[in-house]
């Protein structure tokens, strides 16, 4: 603009045919020129050929400098208040953009203070440009069109202005259309349209990147006083994008975003009256936001998401799972839809709600799961929410139709709780049907979740559950009877769950006591359990009842000392089991039980029993029975109730016909032992010999 104004200051003198003015160096606040020369050739036809040249022109504080600049107008028409240059050409070499050759036209009419300049050509980052600028009635209008910018060249250009290594890489092309209008007091309206295609770009560290992404942006803004009213829409429908750790394939999950905002330059705030984000079939969200400019840059002062609708599993898999990597929740499968509300204050969550509609979540490894979950979860940071959202609900409630807990099927139940800051508290007991019994959590309180001094308090009781169902569900050898008990003060600290006091349970008509129970990383990759277990007075009849091991009557005591489980599989213990000393019940053992015990312990009594005279007897009286197993490194070091001549007594007979079961294998492979136990259960009653 300045060039032209300067041009018209030099008024031609008609008596001279060629006027050459060597102005030398010219400088103003915005630009400077060295070795400037103006040549005017006054031809006979009345038209003037004008040419302005300079060795070097610098614009705006060294930001852009041009060398060998020539601005020529071979047919300059000048009238009293009118000037026209129909064939304007500008050549020169830009330090940043390289050699440039532009052509256009210019008109100036002093009568109504109107001017129009059109320029085409040149090369800005690989794209020709078209610039149209008009001035009329005190208003100006301009349009810049760069239809085919090469992003690699653009980035190379940007790299000159950015610190080393911050520019990253880019490939692809972009069309840009910018139009603006205004008065001498400044711009009043502008519109920007960007159409980027095949953008493969990323920052140097690779934490933000796109691959062959296409995106369109349309931004319209109007100004009144210091405030810009901005409306913008953006869409992406091809290629892929990554912003660590989230990856979106836009070809299959196209996205669209829009904002309606006011940028107040005086107050340095961007007030977003509404924002929208949508990915059909996955996520839709609307809300408001306030962005404040500070000395450190832009800061998200407040954000509300009024309605976020997430379709599961798509939204979970794309946006939540990457943040849950290496946590107990990264193997979650989900289904259903969740509607959410969120309030962020100073970039920190202040309140959050989720409304579940028939949601199902399940851990792939079966540790936990819920299905048919409906209800609302509300969380808030009381300090902030009290000011910003005083009516945010405090009480959460979810009901579900089925659940899974540690591989066990659980039934319909509902949970009511309060979640505030890092604390969680059950507000009414949770009664979870578990198999044919019930797990009742009377109290559950978590304080300072995630903090080092996190505290967990749990008081729970298990109403008797069928052991047959429990062991079947866990894939363990099946036992008959029931289990129930009370879990006293359970605490969690540093990834370790510890039970203070002894866990008592009623089982097989006797008592079970679990002491020193400790679970390390219960939800981690390598859960470990340590415990000392003792039991007294277990009724063998109940134990063997539905278990096709064979019927045994009598009672036993025993212990599993130093139990160590890894990934819920026993890896070490010292176990022993023997007939209860003062037990008046009849001690009898069935033929089938004898067969099975001997087959498990490596004896070969089965054939002898079913074929010989012994085959006539259903069961036998016994004096005592017992078994010891010290498990180390996958091997069970076996023992019985007493040493025999060789081997050890597992069952010591009594009366006639007397039967002794003697074990000879001193070492048994634990995995094979379990296999054998399983095969006994699966085999059912024997087909030869008398049945029980």
């Amino acid at each position, binding site marked *: 603009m300045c060039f032209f104004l300067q041009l018209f200051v030099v008024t031609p003198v008609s008596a001279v045919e060629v006027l050459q003015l060597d102005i030398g160096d010219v400088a103003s606040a915005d630009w400077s020129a060295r070795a400037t020369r103006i040549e005017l050739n006054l031809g006979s036809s009345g038209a003037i050929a004008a040419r302005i040249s300079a060795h070097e022109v610098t614009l705006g504080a060294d930001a852009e400098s041009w060398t060998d600049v020539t601005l020529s107008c071979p047919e300059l028409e000048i009238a009293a208040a009118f000037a026209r240059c129909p064939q304007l050409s500008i050549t020169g070499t830009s330090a940043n953009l390289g050699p440039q050759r532009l052509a256009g036209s210019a008109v100036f009419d002093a009568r109504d203070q109107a001017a129009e300049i059109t320029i085409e050509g040149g090369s800005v980052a690989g794209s020709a440009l078209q610039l149209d600028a008009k001035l009329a009635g005190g208003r100006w209008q301009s349009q810049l069109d760069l239809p085919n910018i090469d992003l690699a060249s653009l980035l190379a250009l940007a790299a000159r202005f950015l610190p080393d290594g911050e520019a990253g890489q880019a490939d692809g092309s972009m069309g840009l259309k910018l139009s603006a209008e205004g008065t001498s007091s400044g711009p009043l309206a502008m519109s920007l349209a960007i159409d980027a295609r095949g953008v493969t770009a990323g920052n140097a560290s*690779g934490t933000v*990147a796109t691959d062959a992404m296409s995106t369109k942006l349309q931004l319209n803004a109007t100004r009144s006083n210091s405030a810009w009213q901005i409306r913008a829409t953006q869409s992406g429908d091809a290629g892929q994008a*990554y912003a660590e750790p989230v990856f979106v394939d836009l070809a299959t999950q196209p996205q669209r975003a829009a904002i309606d905002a006011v940028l107040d330059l005086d107050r340095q705030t961007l007030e977003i009256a509404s924002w929208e984000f949508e990915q059909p079939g996955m996520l839709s969200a609307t809300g408001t936001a306030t962005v404040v400019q500070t000395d450190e840059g832009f800061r998200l002062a407040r954000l509300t998401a009024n309605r976020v609708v997430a379709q599961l599993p798509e939204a979970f898999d794309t946006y939540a799972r*990457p943040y849950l*990597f290496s946590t107990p929740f990264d193997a979650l499968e989900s289904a259903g839809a969740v509607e959410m509300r969120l309030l962020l204050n100073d970039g920190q969550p202040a309140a959050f709600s989720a409304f579940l509609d028939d949601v199902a979540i399940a851990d792939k490894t079966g540790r936990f799961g819920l299905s048919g979950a409906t209800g609302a979860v509300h969380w808030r940071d009381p300090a902030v929410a009290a000011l910003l959202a005083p009516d945010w609900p405090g009480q959460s409630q979810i009901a579900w139709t089925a659940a899974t807990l540690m591989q066990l099927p659980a039934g319909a139940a509902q949970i009511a709780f309060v979640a505030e800051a890092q604390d969680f508290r059950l507000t009414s007991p949770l009664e979870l049907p578990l198999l044919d019994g019930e797990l009742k959590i009377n109290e559950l309180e978590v304080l300072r979740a995630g903090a080092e001094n996190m505290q967990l308090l749990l008081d729970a009781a298990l109403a008797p559950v069928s052991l047959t169902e429990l062991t079947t569900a866990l894939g363990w050898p099946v036992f008959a009877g029931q289990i129930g008990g009370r879990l006293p003060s359970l605490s969690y600290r540093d990834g370790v769950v510890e039970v203070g006091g002894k866990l008592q349970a009623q089982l097989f008509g006797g008592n079970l006591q679990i002491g020193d129970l400790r679970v390390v990383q219960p939800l981690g*990759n*390598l859960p470990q359990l340590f415990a000392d277990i003792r039991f007294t007075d277990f009724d063998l009849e109940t134990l063997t009842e539905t278990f096709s091991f064979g019927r045994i009557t009598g009672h036993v005591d025993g212990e599993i000392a130093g139990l160590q489980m*890894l990934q819920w599989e026993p890896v070490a213990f010292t176990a022993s089991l023997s007939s209860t000393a003062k037990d008046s019940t009849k001690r009898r053992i069935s033929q089938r039980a004898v067969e099975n015990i001997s087959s498990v312990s490596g004896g070969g009594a089965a054939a002898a029993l079913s074929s010989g005279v012994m085959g006539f007897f259903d069961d036998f009286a016994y004096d005592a029975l017992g078994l010891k197993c010290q498990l180390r*490194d996958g091997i069970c070091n076996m023992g019985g109730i007493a040493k025999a001549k060789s081997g050890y007594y597992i069952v010591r007979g009594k009366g006639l016909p007397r039967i002794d079961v003697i074990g000879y294998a001193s070492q048994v492979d634990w995995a094979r032992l379990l296999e054998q136990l399983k095969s006994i259960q699966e085999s059912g009653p024997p087909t030869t010999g008398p049945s029980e």
Partner: protein
Amino acid sequence: MRRLLLLASTALVATAACVTINVYFPSAEAAEAADRIIDEVRGANDNSEESAAELGVPARLRHTLAALAASALDFVVPAAHAQVDFNASSPATRSLEASLKKRFSDLKPYYQSGAIGVTREATVAIRDRNLIPLPERSRVLKLVADQNADWNALYVEIARANNHPEWENQIRSTFAERNVAKLESGWWYQDSSGGWKQK
């Protein structure tokens, strides 16, 4: 002369009275165990890589020397003797080795492309995300995080299993060193200053 003798014997007695027990970290055994575990995890065929045994002093000799040193130490300070068996596998180390091995096969292509490398802390780190296709980038983050959780747990476990929890860092250094020694050509590792180098 008599006075000198007296002085000398007093000094000897004084020295004997202030025996400092330095618990000896069995580097050779640790290196061998590290080699075994690294081979196990990487599913390596031994012929392409140098093993600790081939480095300078043969392992057998090292063993003998270590045994001699240990028995000499035993003689002087019986309490300093420690039962060390880095190869003794516990259920925890076996389980960790199995999951490390399983995950390693998923990570291998990224070692080959140079996207990831081994660190001087004997863990895995992402060296250049830009070498990982976008759809796989977050998965590699997870694999690396999980692998490191297991490696870290393994170092703690080996130290713990040998009743020397304080050896964790030495075990880690041993693994770091053996990791690099056994690295396939073209793969990347962090040098002692933390810079990336290609083998």
